[in-house]
């Protein structure tokens, strides 16, 4: 929102220097994005008169002028404009001045005395384009008294900027701040707030505050009907005859440019100017282009088409509010007028419209058509329908001032319902309690009355009536905000809440995750965070089915189209890059959420289920240093959880056809070299090496493995203490030769059971020592365990150990045909 300080000053006194005003606006109104001093842009632009004008001796199209700049001496300027002539009052850009249109260029054009075809030109006479007032470059600007605001005079030698109000400061305030403040999209509203935060009373001008009496004009037939009254609370229109369409007086053009708008013609300029002033969008139609002398509203029909002022044609549907004439659409309500009813230089009669549209309906249309305009920005904040009569009255008067004409119909006012100003009840206690203040009734009232609230009675529980333009005052909290802001939030007492000494409980999930992080970091792994969304191809590369993934409808790129169903694909994606960067052995891990389409949250069935996984991928490059990568991944997994009650079932024995979730989780892994984690008959994760296809697709080094596990299955290792024995432990190794296809775990369990059976009260600890296979015998393997025995009541003997070893040998032989080596 560009705020013109000169315009503000028409409504209220501003005594602060600009920098202090900006600071105050920042603190009490909204964030200032930019402050532009227009004076600098027009430095060196002076009002001058052409005293003498002769043809250039060496150039057909140039004239040599002597101009009076008020200094008492004439100055020679060469001018190429066809309209330059003696007696003209012009804008002279003197040597040293920057051409205003180039002011913001990387290399602004600074004028200096310069010879043009042998004749020296001191500066230049400016066109509208050079003055950054429009695109017109066909001739120089001709100044007349009609270009001035009342009270100003054209004085030769005087500053152009000061004469035309361009000695202005533009304060650009973030629009976002005003999302709930329809009134602050007009200069008048901002002026009121500037008075309010300065603790000064503001009075709106009569034309805005007092309901006008409308004359009953005649001369043009006009019919008006509001058929979309559900979403058009108010629709006012009036016909004006015999206007003269021409460029606006220069002061108006300058005012529009200062506020970031663009002059078009006097009719359109006035409608825009009044919108910038009041925040109420207005529109003018060419009366003679409205078929059937009709103007109205209705909902569009599906398939209807509407060419708009921007030259594009839009396909409408039933949710668009449209403005229609007797035969069809002539405007997209609240957004843009139609090209077919546009005011042009031939226009003689016009219809003025000042309407109110439902903010949600126009926003929806604008979003669907991708069409954002100044009018929409204002309508979608919820303008007050109570300002329409005042605004259309001002519009009529202003049109008369700049384009002549006379009212030629009655004032149509299609009001759907009674509108009333908002009222809220609150007390001093309510307000003070929420601000931590102790303001007196009188102080509160005064802050609000400054911005034209009415309050009754004067104290106690009372009714605050918002001025009609404030549609945002709904709850008593809105009054709290107003009081706090106008008083100054910087003056609120800063005190901490009183709290009980009860400890806040820790979040178990956060504790668990933090423990995983610390454990894996201690084990030399690096935590990564990767995107929650993946490319369809990434899923396909690990063999996943995208049908199981939630899909974004407005993804930034295909790279981020699907919610991932597992973390591993993201991690695999990051391996080659790090490998290439010179890291030859590393482990990456991530704790993150996964989603599986169709699975809803158990506790909250309206939203999808979210599983938290920990995934780790490790690589030691292309060489298997100490054995298969699987076992290293397993070592990492064992840092996180004991595998005592988790069964590692070979992936090759796991039936994926009946478990879609399991299939999705395990698709990347090589079945013969991976396992699923099973607990209580349910799969909780997967660990293993990746299939050759996956390794090729991601360009993974050979010795790469990983795991992905639901974090709920990880049994936090907690400290448990076993009393120390006073007696020494004894240990002995046993090597058992078994068939190659016997699982290590089976032998281990058999060994453990047999050892315990013969332990005779001793504690047994069994640790693997080696797994050996002779090169020439791949049918069998020899597994060696170290059996350690500890007794709490006596010293163990060799005989005791021998009994345990015998028991192991017998059981292993009976159950698994193992032989002691």
């Amino acid at each position, binding site marked *: 929102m560009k705020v013109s300080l000169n315009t503000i000053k028409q409504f209220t006194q501003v005594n602060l220097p600009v920098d202090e005003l900006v600071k105050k606006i920042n603190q009490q109104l909204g964030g200032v994005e930019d402050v532009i001093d227009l004076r600098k842009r027009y430095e060196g632009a002076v009002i001058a008169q052409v005293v003498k004008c002769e043809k250039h001796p060496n150039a057909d199209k140039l004239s040599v002028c002597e101009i009076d700049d008020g200094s008492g001496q004439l100055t020679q300027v060469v001018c190429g404009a066809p309209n330059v002539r003696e007696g003209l009052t012009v804008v002279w850009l003197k040597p040293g001045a920057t051409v205003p249109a180039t002011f913001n260029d990387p290399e602004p054009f600074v004028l200096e005395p310069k010879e043009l075809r042998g004749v020296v030109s001191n500066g230049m006479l400016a066109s509208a384009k050079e003055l950054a007032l429009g695109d017109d470059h066909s001739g120089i600007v001709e100044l007349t008294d009609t270009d001035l605001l009342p009270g100003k005079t054209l004085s030769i030698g005087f500053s152009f900027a000061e004469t035309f109000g361009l000695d202005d400061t533009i304060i650009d305030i973030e629009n976002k701040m005003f999302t709930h403040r329809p009134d602050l999209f007009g200069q008048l509203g901002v002026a009121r707030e500037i008075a309010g935060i300065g603790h000064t009373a503001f009075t709106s001008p009569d034309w805005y505050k007092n309901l006008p009496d409308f004359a009953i004009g005649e001369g043009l037939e006009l019919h008006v009907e509001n058929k979309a009254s559900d979403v058009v609370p108010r629709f006012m229109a009036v016909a004006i005859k015999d206007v003269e369409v021409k460029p606006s007086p220069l002061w108006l053009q300058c005012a529009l440019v200062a506020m970031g708008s663009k002059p078009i013609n006097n009719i359109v300029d006035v409608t825009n100017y009044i919108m910038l002033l009041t925040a109420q969008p207005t529109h003018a139609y060419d009366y003679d282009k409205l078929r059937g002398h009709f103007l109205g509203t209705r909902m569009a029909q599906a398939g209807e088409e509407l060419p708009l002022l921007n030259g594009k044609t839009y396909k409408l549907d039933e949710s668009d509010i449209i403005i229609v004439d007797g035969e069809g659409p002539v405007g997209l309500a609240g957004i843009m007028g139609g090209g077919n009813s546009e005011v042009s230089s031939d226009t003689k009669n016009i219809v003025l419209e000042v309407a109110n549209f439902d903010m949600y309906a126009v926003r929806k249309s604008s979003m669907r058509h991708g069409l954002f305009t100044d009018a929409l920005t204002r309508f979608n904040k919820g303008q007050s329908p109570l300002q329409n009569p005042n605004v259309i009255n001002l519009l009529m008067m202003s049109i008369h001032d700049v384009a002549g004409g006379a009212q030629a119909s009655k004032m149509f006012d299609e009001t759907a319902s009674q509108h009333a100003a908002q009222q809220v009840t609150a007390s001093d206690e309510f307000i003070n309690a929420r601000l931590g203040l102790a303001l007196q009734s009188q102080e509160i009232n005064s802050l609000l009355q400054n911005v034209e609230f009415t309050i009754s009675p004067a104290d106690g529980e009372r009714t605050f009536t918002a001025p009609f333009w404030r549609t945002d005052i709904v709850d008593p909290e809105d009054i709290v905000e107003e009081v706090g802001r106008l008083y100054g939030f910087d003056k609120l007492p800063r005190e901490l809440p009183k709290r009980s000494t009860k400890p806040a409980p820790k979040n178990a999930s956060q504790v668990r995750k933090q423990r995983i992080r610390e454990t894996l*970091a201690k084990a*030399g792994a*690096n935590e990564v*965070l990767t995107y929650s969304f993946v490319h369809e191809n990434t899923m396909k590369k690990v063999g996943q089915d995208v049908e199981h993934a939630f899909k974004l409808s407005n993804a930034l790129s295909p790279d981020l189209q699907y919610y991932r169903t597992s973390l591993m694909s993201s991690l695999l994606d990051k391996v080659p890059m790090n490998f290439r960067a010179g890291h030859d052995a590393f482990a990456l891990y991530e704790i993150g959420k996964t989603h599986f389409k169709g699975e809803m949250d158990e506790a909250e069935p309206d939203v999808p289920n979210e599983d938290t996984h920990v995934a780790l991928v490790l690589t030691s490059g292309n060489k298997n240093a100490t054995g298969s990568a699987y076992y290293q991944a397993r070592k990492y997994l064992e840092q996180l959880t004991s595998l005592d009650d988790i069964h590692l079932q070979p992936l090759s024995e796991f039936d994926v056809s009946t478990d879609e979730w399991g299939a999705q989780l395990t698709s990347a892994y090589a079945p013969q070299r991976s396992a699923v984690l099973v607990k209580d008959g349910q799969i909780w994760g997967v660990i293993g090496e990746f299939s050759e296809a996956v390794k090729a697709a991601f360009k993974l080094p050979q010795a790469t493995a990983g795991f992905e596990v639901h974090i709920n299955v990880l049994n936090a290792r907690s400290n448990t203490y076993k009393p120390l024995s006073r007696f020494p432990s004894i240990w002995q190794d046993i090597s058992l030769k078994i068939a190659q296809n016997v699982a290590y775990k089976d032998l281990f369990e058999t060994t453990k059971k047999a050892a315990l059976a013969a332990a005779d009260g001793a504690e047994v600890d069994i640790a693997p020592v080696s797994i050996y296979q002779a090169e020439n015998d791949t049918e069998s393997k020899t597994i060696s365990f170290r059996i350690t025995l500890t007794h709490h009541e006596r010293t163990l003997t060799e005989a005791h150990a021998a009994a345990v070893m015998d028991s192991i040998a017998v059981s292993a032989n009976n159950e698994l045909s193992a032989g002691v080596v």
Partner: protein
Amino acid sequence: MSSSDDIARVRETLLSRYEGLETKADILKSPELKELLAGIRNVEPSQRSAYGQAVNALQQELKEKVLSNMHEKSALPPIDVTAPFDINGEMPSLLPSENGTTHPLTQEIATLSDIFYRMGYVVEESREIDDQYHMFEALNFPKGHPARDDYDTFMTVEKDADGEPFVAPAHTSTMQNRILKKYRENLEKGEAIAAIVPDRVFRNEDLDARHEHTFYQVEGVYVAKGVHAGMLIATLQQFLQEYYGKELDVRVNPFYFPFTEPSFEFALSCPFCGGKDDSCKVCSGEGWVELLGCGMIHPNVLKAADIDPNEYTGFAFGCGIDRLVMMKYQIEDVRHFESAKLDFLRQFE
């Protein structure tokens, strides 16, 4: 003979020959296949495209067979997944402990969670996919409200029970309604609702050095009897002073959020230069760092959680975590966080 029969016949021949081949890749060199490929250009133009596609599909099928056979052959032999290490292998070792790191963002989440925990706040987690009720409606953004436009929100193709797309939450405030309900009973016991939610959020924004579509935010909620806006400012000031380990000034400017009233933009005096250094990379010498949005919880938000706004009041705030970390270490590019580059990660022990 029609062309599609032609292709089918060749396919039969080649598939049966494939089984017998020693070098499977030779199937791609078969003269029959070459003949089919060469024949495409002789087919009538009206049928050429369909015919060409069919021939290419056959070629593709054969290629995939060869490739998967190659993968099968290069596949390593089965291993005993129940064993602790490999046959003739050693007990695998872990990587050197000094190489291990946690992520700078999760480190920071732990740090700030700890400060709030000491201040009496519980820590809650957010969601990565949610419904629009929690993201918007429960927070006083009615359907179609223009304030929704300020949150460039990712939406899913899939719809919720109301027929609205699910969303990737653009703020961790998506948990606010749940937290208010979960801890509502605190209020009856005369205790406060005090919670923070540090977690991942998403905005539909193009990536550059300063913008990420995926980032982290900490939401804070505090509700009790007699809570006022000055307490919000004091609480955030205390938190930031503890976080930076020094005295800091703070400032609030009015702002607009639908879920707070009044709403503020909150800034702190530059913790790095105190406004004394014109070349300061964090505050550019302005002396203030705009850090977060906050405000008094809107009565409609309390009501949506069955809390009486006349009896209880509260505040909420939301602060970007990535920005805190970037300022702390002067990280120049936000994209490093999700890059998984070890050269980046290993600088944060």
